[in-house]
C-alpha cells in the first residue's frame, strides 16, 4: 500500500463523507472550539456529561478529511464512556499518533482491538504536517473535559 493509500484509508473517507453526530446540543452541555490557524480547520464540540459519563455530543465546524474523520471517529468512540476512560483513550490516541511519548498501545496482531476505527489514522504519522489535523478534535475534547471538571 502506498503512503497515500495508508493515509486516506476507506474508513477515513467514509467518516469524512458521513461524519457521525454532526449538529449541536440543546440540553445542558459544555462547548469547546478548536482551530488550526495554519490551514483554517475548525472543530466545535458540544459535550453533555452526567455523573462523570459522556451522555451525548455533537460536532460542527469544517476542515480536511483527517481532522473531520478524526472527530467523527472520536465521537463514535467516547459516547457512553466515563470521563476517566475517555482521558485514557485520549492518551492512547496521542501516543499512537506520536503526539505524546510512550509505547504504541495498538496491537498489530489484532487491528482495531484497542482504539477501533481510530487505528486507521496511524497512516497520518508519515505526514508530520498533518498530525495536528488528526489532533484537533482531541485537543478540543480535552478543553471540553477540563470545563466539566472545573
Amino acid at each position, binding site marked *: 500500500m502506498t503512503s497515500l493509500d495508508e493515509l486516506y484509508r476507506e474508513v477515513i473517507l467514509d467518516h469524512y463523507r458521513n461524519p457521525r453526530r454532526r449538529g449541536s446540543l440543546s440540553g445542558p452541555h459544555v462547548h469547546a472550539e478548536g482551530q488550526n490557524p495554519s490551514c483554517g480547520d475548525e472543530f466545535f464540540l458540544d459535550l453533555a456529561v452526567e455523573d462523570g459519563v459522556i451522555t451525548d455530543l455533537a460536532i460542527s465546524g469544517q476542515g480536511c*478529511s483527517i481532522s473531520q474523520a478524526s472527530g467523527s471517529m472520536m465521537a463514535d468512540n467516547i459516547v457512553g464512556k466515563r470521563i476517566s476512560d475517555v482521558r485514557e483513550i485520549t492518551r492512547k490516541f496521542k501516543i499512537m499518533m506520536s503526539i505524546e511519548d510512550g509505547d504504541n498501545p495498538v496491537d498489530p496482531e489484532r487491528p482495531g482491538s484497542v482504539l477501533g476505527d481510530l487505528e486507521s489514522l496511524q497512516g497520518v504519522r508519515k505526514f508530520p504536517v498533518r498530525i495536528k489535523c488528526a489532533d484537533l478534535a482531541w485537543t478540543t475534547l480535552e478543553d471540553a473535559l477540563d470545563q466539566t471538571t472545573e
Partner: protein
Amino acid sequence: MIDLSHLRGDFPLLEREINGYPLTYLDSASTTQKPVQVIDAVDTYYRTINANVHRGAYTLAAEATDAYESSRAKVADFIGASHANEVVFTRGTTTAINFIAYGWGLNNLGEGDKVLLTVMEHHANVVPWQIISRYTGCSLEYLSIDDGFEVDLTTLDDILDERVKVIAVSGMSNVTGALGPVTALVEAAKAVGAIVVVDAAQLVPHVPTDVSQLGADFVAFSAHKMLGPTGIGALWGKPDLLERMEPTEGGGEMISDVQLYESRWAPVPHKFEAGTPPIAQAVGFGAAVDYLSKVGMADVRDHEQAITRYALDRLADIPDLTVYGPPDVERRGGAVSFQLADIHAHDIATILDQYGIAVRAGHHCAKPLMRHLDVPATARASFYVYNTTEDVDTLYDGLIEARTVFGLT
C-alpha cells in the same frame, strides 16, 4: 508563448527531488525561488563588503552604503519612480502598509473618517487598518466582489464621500488572481481628496508597473515574491506625501537631531528607515530587479498569461473542479485557486506533495474573501518565470490522482 525555459537553470532549488519526484514548484504567489544571481549577490556582500551603512568614514562602510543606495536606485527605476528617494526599504509589504497606517493614519484619521477597502484584500491590507481604526475611531468600509470575482464598483458611488480619507486596494488578488480596479479608485479618490494605497505584493512582481503613471499615492511590495531575499520590501510614496508622513519606527539613522525630549527627522527616505536596515537583503533585492529587468517585465507578463491560459484550459477538463477567479487572462494574473469535488484543499496539497508538486492550501491570508466565496479553504497553484506548461501537465496528472485516492472516477 514566450520561451523562458532557459531560465530554469538559474534556480538551484528547482533541481530538488521531493518524495522521489522532481519538484514542481507552484507556490510563487507565496514566495518565489531565487536565481543564483541573487543568492550570490547576498553571499558576495557578506564575504567582501559587509559593514554598516551611512555611518562610516572608512572604505568598507562607503562601499556598503553605495551598494545599499544603488539597490534603492535600481528598485526605484524598476517601478518607474522619478527619484530613488521615493523608495523606502521596509521588511516587506506588510511592514510597508503598517508604516502608512501608523505614520499617516494615526496622524490624519479620526472619528467619522473612513478607510475604504475591498473584500478581496490580503490580511496585510486589512488588519493594519483595523488596528488604526481602534486607535483613531475611524471606520472601515468595503467594496464587495462580483460574480466574475472582480471588485464590484457599483456601490462605490453610495459609499464615496468626503469622509473617505484612504482607499486601500490590492493590485492583484493572491487568491483569485483578479487585478484590482486601481485606475477607477484613483479617479474616485481624486474626487473626494482621499489617498490611494496599492498593495502591490502581487502586482509589481508580475505586471509591468509604472508608479509615475499609476496615480496611486503609496505602493507596497515584497522582494521575496519577485526573486529577491526574504526580510526586505519597499514602500514607494509620492514625494510630498512621504515628506508630510510621520515615521512609524524611531531610532538611529532616521534622525537629524535627538535631544532628550524631542527629535528632528532625517530627510526622506531615511526618516522611515530606523536602525540598521536589511543591507545584504537590499543588495539581493537589487540583483533580483536586475534579473527581472533583463528578462523584461513585458515578457514575464506574456509568459504568465500564456501559462495561466493553458492552466485554466487544462483544469477545465477535470470533473468537479471549480476555479475561483476571472477566466480572462487579460484581467488576471497567475494565481489560480480551485476546489476539486469534495476533497479538502489541505488533502489536495498533501496528495500533490507526494508527487513533488508544491501548491498552497488554506485561506491564503484572505479570510474575508473566503467567507464571501463561502469556501473554508482553496488549493492554489501559482506561476512565475521558471514555470512551464509541463508543470501544469504534472499538476493535471496529480489532480486526477487525487480523484482516484478519494474514490472518484
